[in-house]
Structures are given as C-alpha cells and as structure tokens.
C-alpha cells in the first residue's frame, strides 16, 4: 500500500492525515518528516488522523510515540483519530489509548 501523508494547519492545530500502512521504516521516516513540517512551524497541538491506516506495527507505534514525546516535552499534545479496526486493537492491546488522547 502506497504511503501518503497530508499535512494541514488550522488555527493552532496541526493535522497529519495518514493514508497507508504504518509498518515499515520508510513509513516511520515519512511520518517523522510530516511531523517536523508541523512542529517546525511552532504548532504544539497535533492531530494524527489514522483513519486511512489499516496496519500499524512496532515501527509505526514507535514513531507515533516519538511524536507524542517531542510534543509533551514542550507541553504540547498529540491526539489521534479515529481509532478503528486493527489500529484500534493494537492501541488497546498496548494500552496506548490510555496514553494518547483520542480526538472526537
């Protein structure tokens, strides 16, 4: 599945829409770059839209957590939306839904 990231800034929030699987080093690196685009523009509230993601593995989860920790270090917030299917299961299994805010 081809990986695509779309970024957008609306007010004080940055949005990253992911389309594809977050299950490889390449996709993790692409997420890092997309996140940097938002972060370097000073946005500290970031919404990660995972509705287009079917599979997430430890690579992808590690990069999501990297984003979470970089924001937290500067009193920022990472939110993910929406959780469904396999991604939802992975988040619940690994208790990430208790760590990262789920956006409405």
């Amino acid at each position, binding site marked *: 599945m081809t990986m695509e990231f779309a970024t957008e800034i609306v007010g004080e929030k940055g949005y990253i829409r992911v389309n594809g699987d977050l*299950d*490889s*080093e390449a996709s993790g*690196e692409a997420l*890092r770059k997309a*996140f*940097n685009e938002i*972060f370097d523009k000073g946005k500290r509230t970031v919404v990660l839209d995972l509705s287009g993601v*079917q*599979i997430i*593995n*430890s*690579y992808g*989860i*590690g*990069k999501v*957590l*990297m*984003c*979470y*920790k*970089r924001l937290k270090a500067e009193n920022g917030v990472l939110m993910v939306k929406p959780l469904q299917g*396999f991604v939802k299961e*992975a988040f619940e*299994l*690994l*208790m990430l839904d*208790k*760590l990262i805010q789920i956006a409405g």
Partner: protein
Amino acid sequence: MTSPLSRAPSASPPTVLFADDDPVMRALFRQFAARAGWDPVIVEDGDSTIKQLSQREFDVVITDFRMPKLEGLPLLKKIKGTHPLQALIVVTGSITVSELVATLKEGAQDIIQKPVDFFSLEHSVNRILSNSDQREFEETLIGKAIWQTTLYRFKSLDLASRKLQLPQIHQLHATGLISLHEKLSLELAVQEALANSLEHGNLELESIWKEQIDAQGLDQYSIIKGSRLKQKRYGDRTISIKVGLTLKRLAIEIQDQGKGFNFQPLLRKRRSLTQKCYGRGIPLIKEAFDQVQYSLNGRKIRMVKKLPRSSWR
C-alpha cells in the same frame, strides 16, 4: 433412493464404482476387487463415472482426482449434485492445499495417496460402509497430513530491504482456514519477529537507542542500523525461516546469527502502560500466535498458530 451412507448390513457384496485413467490401476483394482469380494464397475474417466451413476446405485465411488473428461473438484461437485449422499473416496498422486480442503468440503469420506495401498483402500471402504465416526477419522487424516515444510534464508542486508510475506499465510486465508483479521495479525507478527531477529539479533541493536532522539526526531537506533547493515560483519549474517503447515497448525521458526539474549523477562512481561518507543513487538506476536517460545539462547523464536477444527468445514 436409499442413502449408501445408511446402508443396512446385508449379505450382498458392496457395489463399487472405480474410475481411473491409468489402465494398470484399473487392472490392479479389478484383481483386488475380486479378492475382496466386491461387485465392481470400472471406468476410465469422469464422464463415464457420471453416466454409470445415472444408471445404477453404488455403495462407494472411488475416483482418481486427475483424469481426462471431467476430473477433480468439478467431478466431485457433479457427483454430489445429483447424489448428495454418495460415499466417495478420492485417490490422488498429488493435491494442493486448497484442493485438499475443497475435497473434504465437497463431502469426500477419504483421500488416499498413490501409490495405492489396496488394503488401506479396503479398510476405508469397510469403514465407510460400517458408518463409523467420519469426523473422528477426518481429524486423524488431517492431523497426520504434513503439507509443506518450507525453508528460507536471507542475509541481513537483503531482508532489511524487503517486506517478506509468507505465501503460507496467504494460502490459509485463501482456503478459508483463517479470517482476514487473523491473516493481518499473523503477517504483522511475523514482520515483528523478523525485525527482532534482524535488528536485535544480527545487527545487535539496543532498544534503548530508540529513546535517544535528536532535534529533528532522528533516533540513534535508525542511524546505527543503517551503518551496521553496510558492515560485512553484520550485513552478511543470515536469518533462517522454517515454515511448517498442516491443517491443524502453522508453525514458524526464525533463527538469527546474533549473540543471543535473555528472553525470559520478555515472555513473562505483562501488559503495562509505558511511554517507551520500544518493547511492543513481543506483545503483538503473542496476540497473533497461540504459542511463542525462544531457544538457542534467544537466537531462535518458534511461533505456533493452531487452526480451529471448524475452520475447514
């Protein structure tokens, strides 16, 4: 029509329709049927099989899986279409995974491999005619059938650049033995296990390096990984993958050439809330597979997925 499967015991010999395009097989069967005291009709192709069934009843049909003029699954479907209760034994020299599953789903009572042991064939006919427990028999048949054991070997550098997808998992889903969800879960788990073997095994990368992140979000783990893959000492190490597949289980062993590690704490670890960027591969593997074991000082992982008995009906 009286169901052959519910045939009451009687003194008349079993009526057997035998179909095989090999003249030697037909001659051997003729001799054997005479010795066994059967009443045989012997034909050489699928069309003749259907024609015979339209003219009289048979206690058992024994058919070669591959013949000219209507064979294999289309033949079975046609037989069961007009004679749904017909007792059926399939004889075959080779059969694929999906054909094996489909043959049983079509209602064949037994599958016998060539070269045919005629005494086993006789036993099978007697078992069918005595109406003994078909389900229990199928469990034995399926449990003993080892379809495939496949070996793969890759160098670290080769494996790092590809997303290996095992055809056996695809096969299990294609034959309806596992759901799409299970397929995705198993594929994910295999990717995790391969990544562990490659990165922590062969490349000797430490998980804690994932926490050492610079201002651009680059972590030491990725940087060192890239460097070590280019070094012959690490890049030339291999990973071996052994996949064993039966209708009862999928077993995958992955072995690296690293220095090994103490795996006990990882296997015992319970779910916990953590912000660490690592340590999630094993839980994902344990979620997908029923058994996960390490051996060889942590250099080999064995993962087993049991296939539910009902999944191939």
